[in-house]
C-alpha cells in the first residue's frame, strides 16, 4: 500500500477531515476525545493506535456518528456531515467490526447484501454484488452464500464482515479492531487479503487497532494517540520507526524498531532462489537424477495449476514410483506481498530453512531462504551504524 498507487490510479476513496472534535462522557472529568484534528487523504489507509482508553474507538465511532460528537466538525470531501441524518450517513460509510458482527439470523448473502438492500438496489444487482464480494474475500459464493454465521469459522465470519463493509462501494471504510478476534495465522492471511483488496479499490480506510505491528503493516500513515485522543505522532510507518516524536511514541512502538522494519519489507522485494521443481504424477526415476545433477537434496512439488504442494527431500521421494499428491495443508507457503516477519514465522515450521513464495492465484514464484532474510537484517544493522 504505498502512496504512489494513489496517483497512478484514480481511487474511489474520499477525503476525510476532523476539525477540533470533542467528546465528553457524562460523569467523567476529562474528555474522552479532547479536540482531535486530522486529515486523511483519499485512498489512504490510516491506522489509529494507542493504549486502551486513549479514545481511538470513540474517535472512529464519531465519524459514522454511532457516537455523537459534542463539538467540532467532521468533513467528507469538504462537506460537514455532522448535520446529516445519521442513518443515511452510515449507509454511505463502510463499517467493519471485530468478529464480523454478523446478524445471526441472516444468511451470509443477506448479511453482505444488507446495505445495498437498505439503499433499495435491485435484487439482481445486489445478488451479483454479493457473489463478487464473497469471491473477493476468498469465499466461494456457491458454497457460502446460503450459510448462516454460526456455520462459519471465526476467520470466515470476519471475511464476510469485510465483504459487508465494502458491499455498497462506500468511499470511506471504518474498521474497529477488524482482526482482533482471530488466531495469528488467520490474522496474517486476512491482513494480506485486505492489502490486496485495497491495492485494487483504493478506499479511504480508517482502522483502529491495538497491535502496532498490524498498524505498521497495513497503514500508509499511523496516528498514535495518547489519553484524551491527543496526537502523539501522525506519520508514515517508516518515519515513526526511524524517528519517534517523543518518549511516549518510542515506548509504544517498543524496542527493536530495526526488527520492526521486517514488518515493512515485503517478501517479493527480496531476491528469491529457484530450486528444482517437479510435478505431481511425474515418475520419480526422472526427477531424482535431475535434482542430483543440480547438486540439490530436495525438490518443490507443484500441481497442474503451478501451485506449490510440498517441499520434499529426495530420500522421502525415493520411496515412491511417481511424485505423490500430498493431502495436508501447507504451512510453509507465503504470499509475495507478505512481510518478512510473516515469512520468518512460516520458516519456523519448515525443515528446509526457507518458505515457498506464491504470486497471483497461488502460483509458485520461488523460494525465500532464511539466509536471504538474515543477510537483509544484517544489512539494516550496518545501515544503522
Amino acid at each position, binding site marked *: 500500500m504505498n502512496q504512489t498507487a494513489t496517483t497512478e490510479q484514480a481511487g474511489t476513496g474520499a477525503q476525510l477531515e476532523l476539525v477540533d472534535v470533542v467528546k465528553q462522557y457524562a460523569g467523567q472529568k476529562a474528555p474522552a476525545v479532547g479536540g482531535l484534528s486530522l486529515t486523511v487523504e483519499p485512498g489512504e489507509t490510516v491506522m489509529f493506535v494507542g493504549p486502551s482508553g486513549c479514545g481511538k474507538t470513540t474517535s472512529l465511532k464519531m465519524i459514522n456518528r454511532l457516537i455523537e460528537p459534542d463539538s467540532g466538525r467532521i468533513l467528507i470531501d469538504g462537506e460537514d456531515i455532522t448535520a446529516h441524518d445519521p442513518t443515511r450517513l452510515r449507509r454511505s460509510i463502510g*463499517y467493519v*467490526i471485530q468478529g464480523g458482527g454478523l*446478524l445471526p*439470523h441472516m444468511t451470509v448473502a443477506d448479511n453482505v447484501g444488507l446495505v445495498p438492500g*437498505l439503499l433499495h438496489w435491485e435484487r439482481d444487482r445486489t445478488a451479483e454484488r454479493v457473489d463478487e464480494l464473497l469471491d473477493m474475500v476468498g469465499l466461494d459464493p456457491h458454497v457460502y452464500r446460503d450459510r*448462516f454465521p454460526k456455520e462459519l469459522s471465526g476467520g470466515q465470519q470476519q471475511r464476510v464482515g469485510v465483504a459487508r463493509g465494502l458491499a455498497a462501494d462506500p468511499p470511506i471504510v471504518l474498521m474497529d479492531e477488524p482482526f482482533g478476534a482471530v488466531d495469528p495465522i488467520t490474522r496474517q492471511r486476512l491482513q494480506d487479503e485486505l492489502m490486496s483488496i485495497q491495492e485494487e479499490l483504493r478506499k479511504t480506510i480508517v482502522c483502529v487497532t491495538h497491535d502496532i505491528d498490524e498498524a505498521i503493516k497495513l497503514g500508509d500513515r499511523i496516528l498514535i494517540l495518547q489519553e484524551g485522543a491527543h496526537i502523539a505522532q501522525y506519520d508514515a510507518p517508516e518515519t515513526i520507526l526511524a524517528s519517534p516524536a517523543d518518549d511516549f511514541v518510542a515506548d509504544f512502538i517498543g524496542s527493536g524498531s530495526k526488527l520492526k522494519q521486517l514488518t515493512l519489507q515485503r517478501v517479493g522485494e527480496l531476491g528469491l532462489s529457484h530450486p528444482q521443481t517437479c510435478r505431481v504424477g511425474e515418475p520419480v526415476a526422472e526427477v531424482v537424477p535431475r535434482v542430483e545433477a543440480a547438486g540439490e537434496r530436495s525438490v518443490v512439488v507443484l500441481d497442474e495449476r503451478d501451485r506449490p504442494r510440498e517441499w520434499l527431500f529426495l530420500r522421502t521421494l525415493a520411496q515412491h514410483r511417481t511424485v505423490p499428491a500430498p493431502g495436508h495443508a501447507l504451512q510453509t507457503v507465503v504470499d509475495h506481498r507478505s512481510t518478512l516477519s510473516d515469512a520468518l514465522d512460516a520458516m519456523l515450521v519448515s525443515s528446509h530453512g526457507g518458505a515457498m513464495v506464491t504470486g497471483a492465484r497461488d502460483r509458485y514464484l520461488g523460494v525465500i531462504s532464511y539466509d536471504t532474510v538474515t543477510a537483509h537484517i544484517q544489512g539494516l544493522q550496518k545501515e544503522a551504524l
Partner: protein
Amino acid sequence: MRRLSTLSREDKLLIQGLPAFVVLVLAAWVIWRLTADLGDVEARLLTWSNILELTWQHLQIVLICTVLVLALAVPCGVLLTRSRAAFLSPLVTGIANAGQAAPVIGVIVLLALVLGFGLWTAVLALTLYAFLPVLANTVAGLRGVDRGTVEAARGMGMSPTQVLMRVELPVAMPVIMAGARTALVLLVGAAAFATFIDAGGLGLLVQTGIIMFRYSILVSGAILVALLALLVEWAGRVMELLLRPRGLV
C-alpha cells in the same frame, strides 16, 4: 420436517408424544361415555353437542385472550427496553406482577361485580392474568440480544425501527414465543373459572359436577380441560419451532 432434527431428545419426545397421549386419553374417555350407564342429569349434560359447544366456548375465551395479551404485552415489552421509556419499567412490571399474583378466581368475581357478568369481563381478568409471562419474556428476550449485533446493525445504516423489526425482534423471537406458550397454557386452565360469571366454557361441567355431586361430570370436565391444555401446549411448541428464525440455535 427438517427443523425437527435440530431439537433435543426431550423436545422431540414432547412434540411427537404429546398428541399421542392426548388421543389415547380422549379415546378412553369416549369409550367410557359410549358404554357407561349414565343417569338423567349426566346424560343431559354430556351430550356430544353440549361437549363440543362448551369446548368451543372455552377455546374462544383462550384465543381472544391470547391475541389481546400478545397485542398488548409485546409492544409494552418493546417500550420498556427503549432507553427513553425505561422509567416506566417499575410501574408496568408492578401491574403485571400483581395481575399474575392475585388469585384469578378472585379477580374474575370482583371484576364481575364492578363490570357485570359475561364473556368480556372474563376476557379482561384472564388477559391481566396471562400478561406477565409474555411481558417478562419480551423484555428478557430483547435485553438478551447481543449489543454488538445491534451496534453493527446501526452502523450499517438501519433506522431504529429497522433495527427493532429486522434484528432485535427476530433474534428475541424464541424467548418471546416461550412466554406466549406459557401464557396459553395458563389461560386454558384459568378459563375454567369463566363459568362462575356466566361466560361458559368447560368449567361449567366441573362446577355443575361439584354442585350436584355428580363425579362423572366433574371428572369429565377436568379431563377435557387438562387435555385441551396439553393440546395447546403442543400447538405452542410447534409454533415456536416454525417461527424460530433459521440460523439461531
